[in-house]
């Protein structure tokens, strides 16, 4: 690693606040950061910690209500805060660039990928269109795209998420910048794709020696990629240390808490399952197909190919069992969950407690009481115009039960570790984790025997996720309900599931005991999936 005397990026004593009607909201407090050439600085923090604001501040792309202190931000010898917008637009994309979280939204949907790459070369390198397209092809080849010429002509929706992110990365590297900011570049991608993008990042980083600011919420990931890590809590860097030392001996309590909150597959949180003869649920040959044959197809005598959501899934679930379902997006995890709750049409048979369910009409009130679902985003699944009392009052009214409804809601709130006086609040007055607890309370109010959890911790921060999981496991012990736990977090599911079902493109690849998921005789896809998972930070041989 080459280290020159002037750092590539130097942020000193920098503070940022946003003006709001009710006064100033501090976002970043007296931050010092330096990144040398060839160095990767990891910036870790939970949502709202100010990590994305830091990226905007460096790129000098702040909203109108931003208020900064006198601190400085320097790129090499250039004082970025002294540049006007015109000078900045000359620096952006040329001397420093950015890779964004979600390639699906950071690429313009109506422009060809080639144009979105070539425009940077035309702007900053003074190339002609023809030159830029030729150079663009070479750049796309460099980021491992097999058919660069064809890729250039495609529109974003015609390529996969991983391919899109490769194009974004090629664009960021196009002008050989001094600094690249990576803002959670793999968070929106599937496990295996994310692993490939990380490998690409490491390769390009080594090749070019660019200074990188790598923003992430994932400590484990940074422990593998960054040279140094700065831990950001509520706008303050509480600890900044060489990666090896930070993970070996974290100093600050917040760093310790973050490390401890990451799921560790070796620490099992679920109690062993008591064997029982008859399964609670038995899914037999369940298929979900989307779309239907149109009259034009019939007219032209064309074969109609429905989109397959699930292909003949067969699985059993014992009473009280926690079944994890993993797989990349589009593998049919949620489709299965929706079919089991009657939100999708399906072919095949679900036997619940011995009773056959072949479709929506078989799902009577008893079935609905016994089978509950919790969704990923509490913001979307809780009605914003209803108070908690109304949201939780519905299952109480529908499924009866003894006692005063209001008292029952209050005691349920306490069971999910929320203060009873939340009963008169609206969802927006609660934090993300608290809202998810309300969604959990709603599911458990009907005393269900099967609860389907569809990515319920994906939108939450690590520390919040850990407490929600604790709650779920406690409810599992108390109620004995069976869980179907859908997630893409394989470390997490290995902690809490008895068995894990692996899905791929609508098919069920295999079901394995959670403890035996790492066995060498697992299916190829399962092994590929597990190989792509980043192990928790403290298990690395640092």
């Amino acid at each position, binding site marked *: 690693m080459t280290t020159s005397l002037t750092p590539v990026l130097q942020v000193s004593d920098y503070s940022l606040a946003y003006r709001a009607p009710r006064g100033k909201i501090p976002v970043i407090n007296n931050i010092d950061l330096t990144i040398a050439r060839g160095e990767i600085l990891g910036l870790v923090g939970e949502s709202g910690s100010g990590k994305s604001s830091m990226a905007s501040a460096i790129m000098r792309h702040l909203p109108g209500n931003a208020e900064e202190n006198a601190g400085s931000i320097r790129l090499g010898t250039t004082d970025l805060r002294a540049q006007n917008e015109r000078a900045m637009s000359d620096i*952006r994309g040329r001397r420093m660039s950015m890779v964004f979280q979600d390639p699906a*939204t950071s690429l*313009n949907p*109506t422009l060809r990928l080639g144009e979105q790459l070539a425009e940077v070369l035309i*702007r900053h390198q003074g190339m002609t269109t023809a030159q830029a397209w030729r150079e663009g092809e070479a750049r796309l080849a460099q980021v491992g795209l097999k058919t660069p010429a064809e890729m250039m002509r495609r529109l974003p929706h015609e390529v996969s998420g991983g391919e899109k992110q490769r194009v974004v990365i090629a664009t960021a590297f196009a002008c050989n910048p001094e600094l690249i900011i990576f803002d959670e570049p793999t968070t929106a991608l599937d496990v295996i794709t994310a692993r490939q993008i990380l490998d690409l990042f490491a390769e390009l980083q080594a090749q070019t020696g660019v200074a990188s600011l790598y923003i992430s919420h994932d400590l484990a990931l940074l422990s593998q990629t960054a040279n140094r890590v700065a831990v950001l809590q509520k706008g303050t860097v509480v600890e900044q240390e060489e990666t090896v030392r930070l993970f070996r001996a974290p100093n600050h309590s917040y760093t310790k808490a973050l490390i401890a909150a990451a799921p560790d597959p070796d620490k099992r949180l679920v109690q062993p399952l008591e064997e029982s003869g008859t399964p609670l649920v038995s899914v037999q040959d369940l298929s979900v197909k989307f779309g239907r044959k149109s009259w034009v197809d019939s007219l032209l005598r064309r074969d109609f190919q429905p989109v397959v959501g699930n292909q003949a899934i067969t699985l059993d679930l014992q009473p009280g069992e926690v079944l994890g379902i993993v797989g990349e997006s589009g593998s049919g995890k949620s489709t299965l969950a929706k079919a089991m709750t009657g939100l999708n049409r399906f072919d095949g048979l679900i036997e619940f407690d011995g009773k056959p369910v072949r479709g929506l009409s078989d799902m009577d009130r008893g079935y609905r009481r016994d089978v509950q679902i919790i969704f990923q985003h509490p913001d979307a699944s809780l009605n914003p115009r209803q108070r908690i009392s109304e949201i939780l009052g519905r299952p109480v009214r529908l499924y009866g039960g003894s006692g005063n409804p209001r008292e029952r809601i209050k005691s349920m709130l306490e069971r999910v570790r929320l203060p009873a006086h939340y009963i008169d609040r609206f969802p927006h007055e609660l934090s993300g984790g608290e809202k998810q607890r309300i969604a959990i309370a709603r599911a458990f109010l009907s005393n269900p025997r099967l609860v389907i959890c569809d990515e319920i911790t994906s939108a939450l921060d690590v520390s919040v996720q850990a407490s929600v999981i604790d709650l779920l496991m406690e409810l599992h012990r108390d109620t004995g309900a069976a869980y179907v736990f859908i997630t893409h977090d394989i470390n997490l599911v290995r902690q809490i599931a008895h068995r894990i079902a692996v899905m791929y493109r609508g098919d069920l690849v295999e079901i394995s005991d959670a403890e035996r998921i790492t066995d060498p005789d697992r299916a190829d896809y399962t092994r590929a999936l597990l190989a792509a998972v980043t192990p928790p930070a403290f298990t690395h041989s640092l």
Partner: protein
Amino acid sequence: MSASYILKRVALTFYTLFVVSVLVFGITQILPADAAVMMLGENATPEALEALRQQMGLNDPVWLQYLHWAGGVIRWDFGISMRTGQPVGPALFSALGTSLTLAVLALALMLVLAVPMGIIAAVRRGKLADLAVGFLSYVGVSLPEFVTATLAVLLIADFWGWLPPAGYIPLTQDFVGGIERLILPVTVVSVMMIAHVSRMVRSELVDVMHTDYVRAARLKGLHPRRVLFRHGLRNALLPTITIVALDVGYLLGGVIVVEEIFSIPGIGRSLMSAIQARDLPVIQAGVMIMAATYSIVNFAADLMYAWLDKRIQYD
């Protein structure tokens, strides 16, 4: 865009026209007008009336009458006007030509003014220019064209005498005189559409300028003009196409009022006088022609949308 998509849309357009034809025919049947009385006058003898009814097929069952009429329409034969005794088709199509001149010019004026107004308002959001455009468009939306038309005639034509108050000269006959007489009606018809569309362009563009991909384009250091036009406007105009196509419906209505006030011999005016005279074949044909225009414009808008946004695959 697949052939199957186009085929579906063509079929849907024909289906719409079929439904419209049934409605039009049904409504004119309910109208309190006896065609035979209309033609022979109040004092005709019952025998003469009955003979005429026989001859015109008015005693046939309704469905048979519909088939006769619809069959004629398909063969481009819209019947004979009860008032003039002339075939309806040629007169109505020449009137349609006049109306289309007016409508196309109004549409062009609207696009030339509304799109830049929307862009300026979006770019200068919250500033004076935005407020000015916002104010103007609220005024425009709240003024029906019979008010703007009357005001325009009163002030510009009558009081100041800058332009002729009414009348129509085909452009092929006297270009300057024709344009002079078209300025006021075209402006009046386009006012409300300008107001409407400029608001639409503004709000769409403001939304698009806040998307991740526009932010990414800025952070690539692209020239602000390229960010605005290539990345922003292109995406913001997509929904506007739909709105403009829907506005054509409004345009057809507005044209009727404006033609009446400015004495322009267009299809709207023909329709008005036909309604007053209970001239059923002209009413039926006029409404059919307007509905067909509207359907075709929306069909064209759908094709354009699918062509501009390649993600759209409706099949």
